[in-house]
C-alpha cells in the first residue's frame, strides 16, 4: 500500500474517475446535439489526473492546468454543474463568466487558473507563481500541467530552465498522450520520453504509467515533497492514451487505423484497469462498481438539467473586467464628454 493512500482513498479516486467519464460522455452527447460548442475529452487521462491531484494539497497549492483536464477539475472539487455551465456557456459559470472556452479561467475555491489556448504559455507563468512563493518564503507548491504537444514550445523550455536555476517549488506534469492532435511523438521529438529533458535543466525527470493512478500518485507525491523541502522542481511524465479524437471537432480515423484505435481502447483505458485493481485488493465489489457508475450518471443527469435551465449571460456583462476600473463601453476610447 502506498504511503498516505488507504483503501477508501483509492475507491474515492475511482469515484472521481467514474464521474469524469460519465460527464465526459454527456458533454459529447451535448456537443453532438448542437448544445456544447467544443470539448477536448479527458477519456484515457483520468487516472493520471486523479493521481496527480491526490498527491497535492488543494488548500494551499497552485494549479495551472490545460484544456484536457476534466478529471483534475472534478478531483479539485469543481462540481459537474459548474463545469456544464462552462460547456453550455451559461450564466453563473464560475471560471470566466463563460467568456472563455470551458475549463479556462480561475477556480472559485482553489488557486487554479488557465488563461490560454496557446499551449506552453502556462509553464513560465507557473514558474513565476512559484518564484513569488519562494520570495515570500511560503510553503506552497505550484503544479503545472501540459501535454506532449506543449513540450515542443519554447516557453516550456524557458520556464523549466529558470525553475532549475532557482530551484523553485514546481512540479511539471506532462500528460503524454502520444499525439499533438494528429502528429505522433516520433514527429514531435527525437527522444522516447519528454522526462529525459529534465537532466538538461538540472532536476529529476521520471516517466510513469499514466493509466496507473497509484504509480502517478507516488511519483507526484515524491516530486511535491522534493519541492516542499526546497530541493526544486521535478518533471513527471505520465504516459497515457487519448481514447477519443483531439476534440469534438477532430476525427482520429483520418490519421489512425481501425486496429490502432481498437488497441488503444483495449490497452489504454484506465477505468477497467483501476476497477480490476480495486476488486483484486478487495476494496470494491461488482455491485459497488455498478452503484458508483449509476451514481455518477445520476449526478450528471441532475447537473445537466440544472445547467440547461440557466440563461446565457447578458450582453452587458462582456464590458466588465478589462481593467481595474470601468472601461470599454463602446466606442472603445471615444471622448469622455462632448
Amino acid at each position, binding site marked *: 500500500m502506498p504511503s498516505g493512500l488507504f483503501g477508501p482513498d483509492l475507491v474515492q479516486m475511482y469515484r472521481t474517475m467514474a464521474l469524469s467519464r460519465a460527464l465526459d460522455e454527456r458533454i459529447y452527447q451535448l456537443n453532438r446535439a448542437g448544445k456544447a460548442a467544443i470539448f477536448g475529452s479527458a477519456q484515457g487521462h483520468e487516472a493520471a489526473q486523479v493521481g496527480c491531484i491526490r498527491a497535492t494539497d488543494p488548500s494551499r497549492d*497552485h494549479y495551472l492546468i490545460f484544456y484536457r483536464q476534466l478529471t483534475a477539475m472534478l478531483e479539485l472539487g469543481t462540481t459537474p454543474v459548474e463545469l456544464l455551465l462552462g460547456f453550455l456557456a451559461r450564466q453563473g459559470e*464560475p*471560471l*470566466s*463568466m463563460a*467568456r*472563455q472556452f470551458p475549463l*479556462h*479561467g*480561475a477556480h*472559485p475555491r482553489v488557486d487554479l*487558473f488557465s*488563461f*490560454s489556448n*496557446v499551449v506552453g*504559455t502556462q*509553464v*513560465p*507563468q*507557473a*514558474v*513565476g*507563481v*512559484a*518564484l*513569488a*512563493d519562494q*520570495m*515570500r518564503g511560503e510553503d506552497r507548491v505550484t503544479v503545472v500541467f501540459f501535454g506532449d504537444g506543449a513540450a515542443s514550445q*519554447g*516557453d516550456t523550455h*524557458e*520556464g523549466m*530552465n*529558470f525553475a532549475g*536555476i532557482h530551484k523553485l517549488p514546481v512540479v511539471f506534469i506532462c500528460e503524454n498522450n502520444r499525439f499533438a492532435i494528429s502528429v505522433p511523438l516520433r514527429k514531435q521529438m527525437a527522444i522516447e520520453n519528454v522526462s529525459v529533458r529534465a537532466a538538461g535543466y538540472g532536476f529529476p525527470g521520471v516517466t510513469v504509467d499514466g493509466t496507473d493512478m497509484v504509480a502517478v500518485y507516488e511519483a507526484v507525491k515524491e516530486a511535491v515533497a522534493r519541492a516542499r523541502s526546497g530541493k526544486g522542481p521535478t518533471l513527471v511524465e505520465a504516459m497515457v492514451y487519448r481514447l477519443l479524437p483531439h476534440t469534438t471537432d477532430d476525427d482520429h480515423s483520418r490519421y489512425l487505423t481501425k486496429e490502432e484505435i481498437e488497441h488503444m481502447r483495449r490497452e489504454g483505458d484506465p477505468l477497467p484497469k483501476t476497477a480490476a485493481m480495486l476488486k483484486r485488493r478487495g476494496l470494491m465489489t461488482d455491485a459497488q462498481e455498478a452503484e458508483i457508475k449509476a451514481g455518477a450518471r445520476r449526478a450528471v443527469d441532475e447537473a445537466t438539467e440544472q445547467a440547461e435551465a440557466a440563461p446565457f449571460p447578458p450582453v452587458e456583462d462582456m464590458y*466588465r*473586467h*478589462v*481593467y*481595474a476600473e470601468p*472601461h*470599454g463601453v463602446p*466606442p*472603445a*476610447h*471615444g*471622448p*469622455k*464628454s*462632448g
Partner: protein
Amino acid sequence: MPVMNVVEAVRDAMRLEMRRDPRIFIMGEDVGARGGVFLASEGFLQEFGEKRVIDAPLAESSICGIALGAAVNGMRPIAEIQFADFVWPAINQLVGEAARVRYGTGGRKYAPLVVRIPYGGGVRGGLYHSQSPEVVFAHTPGLKVVAPATPYDAKGLLTSALRGEDPVIFFEHKRTYRLVRGEAPAGPYTEPIGSAEVKRPGTDLSIFTYGLMLHYSLEAVRIVHEQDGINAEVVDLRTLRPLDAETIIASARRTSKAMVVQEDTLAVSVGSEVAALIAEHAFYDLDAPVMRVGPPDLPPMPFSPLQEAAFMPSPEKIAVAIRKLAAV
C-alpha cells in the same frame, strides 16, 4: 527641485517604490551587477539583494511570462526588456496573456506587472536597436501603454504604473535617457496614466506627439515661432492606451488644425488613431485635413548615418510641415 535626466528619473521611481513596497522586484537581462545596459537599476543589487534584482537568462518570453505568474500571485514585478527590438519573443505573454488575465477570469485574477522597454531610434542602432513597437501594445485592450518624454513624467508615470492594478507597458525612449534633463521632485509622486498634457499652448495649430518627438516638435515650434511668428500648440500624449481623447479633441477644436508627429511607421499607428479620433469628433471644427509627420515607409531603421538621419523626423522636417499646415 532636483534636476535629473530621464534614466535617473526611471531609476529614482523604481528605487523609491521598491523601498516602499516589498512586493516589487525587477527581472531582466543584466539588471544585476551590470545595473542594466542603460544603468536604470544601477546600485539596486547592492541595496535590494539578489532576490529582488534578478538577472534573467536571455529569454524574453519567459521574463514576461514569469513576471506575469508572479504578478498573479501577489507580487509587483518589473520586467525589463533590454531593447524594444527584443520584445517580439514576449509578445504572446503580453498581448496574448497578460492583457487577458482579468477579462478571461471574470475578474478573479489580475496581473499588475510593469514591463519597461527602452525603444526608439536616432542612436545608430540599425534594424535591431532602433525599433518602436508601441502600437502593437496600444492596440490591445487590457494593457496600459505609457510613453513619457520628460524626467518629471517618467518618474511620476512609472510610480503610478507600479501602484496600479493593471499590466503596464512602459516605453522609455533611449535617446531621451541622457539627452533630456529637467526638474522632478526628489520624493515619490504620481502622474495619472491616461492623461495627455499640453506642453506648449498655442493658437494656430496643434501637434500631437510623444517620446523623443515631443522634444523635436518643441524645437520646431520654437523655430517657426521665431522665424515665422507661427504659434503652435504641442500636446504630449504621454499615455498611448488609453488615449486621452478629451484633451486631444479639445486641442484640435481650439486651434482648428491638427498634426501628428511620430517616429514609428505611420501606417496603422498611434498617430493614425489620433487622426481618426479628431476626424470623428472634431471634423467640423477643422480648417485643414490632419497632417501626419513620420518616417518613410521602410523597416526602421538604416544603420548608416546619412540614411538614419534621412529616416528620422527632425526639428527641421517638422518645421517645414508646420509652415505648410499653418499656410492652409
